[in-house]
């Protein structure tokens, strides 16, 4: 099953329906409305809004790969740091848009190497590898700066203001949503959902699982790098400890899981309450953040394993599922799911 050859039947199933067009229009309106926020609010509120949009971009790009495949990627901080360093290193040499492109390419290259090494084997190895990736790159950067230069950090000075970051991040988030929506209806996205359900079945369906996972991991990581490039000037001073702070990876995972990983808009539901809660926690209990982060993880696993979207969907189903027509993806996927379930029952 290659992505290039398209069956006519699949095309017919993927035609954009009127319902989807409505959703699309609503989303555009919401994004435009969100774009007016900096004109109304400033100061602290705008700062929090920038965080929300930044984490929404992170969590949604994380979801692109980890949502359908169930592979927990803990590499966000590593790619974020790569983007930051590319921007910080080249800000005086190259125009800013070029840096964003270079950041994306650098992130994609690292993701390709990591993915090639780890995505062919079991998911656990991938998690372990990504867990230490930020620390690995941090050690190399620190060592490199130690050997080749004297300074431990880089200054990034631009005349950009808070609303600029907000708009850039908002635009980036919109792009991530579009890409996610497109992947969701492509053959690639379909392949990934099968991999997430049962990798053995996916292999037997003729899906090149390693390649599908690799492509999505590269896309997801590229976005994380670009976010790093976009917000690097906001930090002003980039040093390895800040750029490759592993907590970022954990926070992104928590937010995405809190929202739910079955829907593209799931992470947003997790990002908003978590960012607000975290602002409160880091002001009220600055020395207990680690402990509370751990408690959040445990709560998500034991109390809301499917996130907020899972809760919402359960509630809708219990009410009889009124107005909850299955999406295109679900309609396409259901027959296959029954097939898979039958096969599994027979094996068991």
């Amino acid at each position: 099953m290659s992505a290039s050859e398209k069956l006519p039947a699949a095309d017919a199933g993927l035609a954009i329906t009127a319902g989807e067009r409505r959703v699309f229009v609503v989303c555009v309106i919401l994004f435009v409305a969100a774009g007016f926020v900096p004109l109304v609010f400033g100061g602290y509120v705008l700062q929090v809004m920038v965080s929300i949009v930044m984490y929404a971009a992170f969590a949604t790009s994380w979801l692109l790969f980890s949502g359908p495949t169930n592979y927990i990627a803990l590499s966000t901080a590593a790619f974020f740091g790569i983007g930051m360093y590319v921007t910080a290193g080249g800000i005086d040499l190259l125009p800013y848009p070029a840096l964003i492109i270079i950041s994306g390419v650098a992130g994609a290259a690292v993701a390709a190497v990591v993915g090639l090494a780890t995505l062919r084997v079991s998911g656990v190895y991938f998690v372990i590898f990504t867990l230490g990736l930020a620390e690995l790159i941090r050690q190399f950067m620190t060592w490199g700066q130690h050997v080749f230069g004297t300074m431990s950090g880089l200054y990034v000075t631009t005349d950009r203001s808070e609303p600029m970051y907000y708009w850039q991040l908002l635009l980036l988030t919109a792009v991530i949503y579009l890409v996610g929506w497109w992947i969701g209806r492509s053959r690639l996205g379909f392949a990934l959902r099968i991999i997430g359900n049962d990798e053995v079945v996916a292999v037997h369906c003729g899906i090149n699982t390693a390649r599908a996972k690799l492509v999505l991991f590269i896309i997801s990581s590229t976005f994380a790098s670009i976010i790093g490039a976009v917000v690097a000037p906001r930090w002003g001073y980039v040093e390895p400890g800040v750029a490759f702070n592993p907590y970022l990876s954990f926070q992104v995972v928590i937010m995405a899981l809190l929202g739910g990983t079955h829907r593209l808009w799931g992470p947003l539901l997790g990002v908003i309450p978590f960012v607000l809660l975290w602002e409160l926690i880091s002001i009220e209990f600055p020395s207990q953040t680690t402990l509370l982060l751990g408690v959040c993880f445990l709560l998500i696993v034991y109390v809301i394993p499917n996130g907020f979207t899972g809760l919402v969907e359960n509630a809708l189903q219990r009410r009889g599922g009124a107005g909850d027509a299955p999406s295109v993806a679900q309609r396409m996927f259901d027959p296959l799911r029954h097939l898979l379930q039958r096969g599994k029952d027979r094996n068991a």
Partner: protein
Amino acid sequence: MDIVIIGLLLGGTYALMAIGLQLQFGVARIMNLANGEILIAGAFGAFWLYAGTKASPLLALLFVVPLAFALNWAIYRVLILPLVRRAKSQGKLEVDCILATFGLSFVFIGIMVAVFGAQYTDYAYLSEPIFIFGERYGLNRVVAFLASAVICAALYLWLHKTRTGLALRAVSVNPSAAGLVSINVARASALAFALGGAVTAAGGVLLSMYLTFDASYGVVFTLKALIIVILGGVGDIRGTIVAAFILGLAETAVATLIDPGLTLAAAYILFMVVLLVRPEGLFGRRTA
């Protein structure tokens, strides 16, 4: 020569912590990312005893090991077992376990910071030189190595000479087949998990004799232990011991010859090579 001996001494202690993880991952099939925090807790236990009474850290083993055993038994019963029961597939269980033990590791770090503080901790026990082949080494390293060797040997004999040890190895090979020959797999898994935690904590006590540590340092040891287990092959104690020595040597070589800041990078490059060349590990069985 220096590098070889220091590397071997380090590897000997690494072997202990990696065997702990091996028991949890290889037998109980639980990826425990809070393993490094158990190790650090053991290290703090030894530090606390030494700071209070000047008692040898080897004595600390006497109370750290049973405590860690009980704690890990409780973790398995209370936190892990519900996940095992609700899991629909091995993949789902893996994800749940990784997230839950992650949360647990953060909770441990938070508690240890609250109790012991966030500063770097070390203590000077037996920090006198000992001469091997005319070069000087810390006596504490040698003592830690010997203690680790004794514990490893005892574990190895126990696993290979007793009925319970045999049951554990059977579960490691195939849990469902082990159930068919009337091994209580749930009990064996819980035992392996608890024992693994106890062994890891013992590794922490021994490492604390010569390493500086702080409350948030556990994740580095989790990573190193995981790399050793994968390098040696999941489910094989001999492989774990050999891999621990390889990692100890590689780290010491990189730290001495290139830069002490690159030890984890060395471990990672080793990891990457294994994944590319021999993903089942040195002694691992190739699965279909």
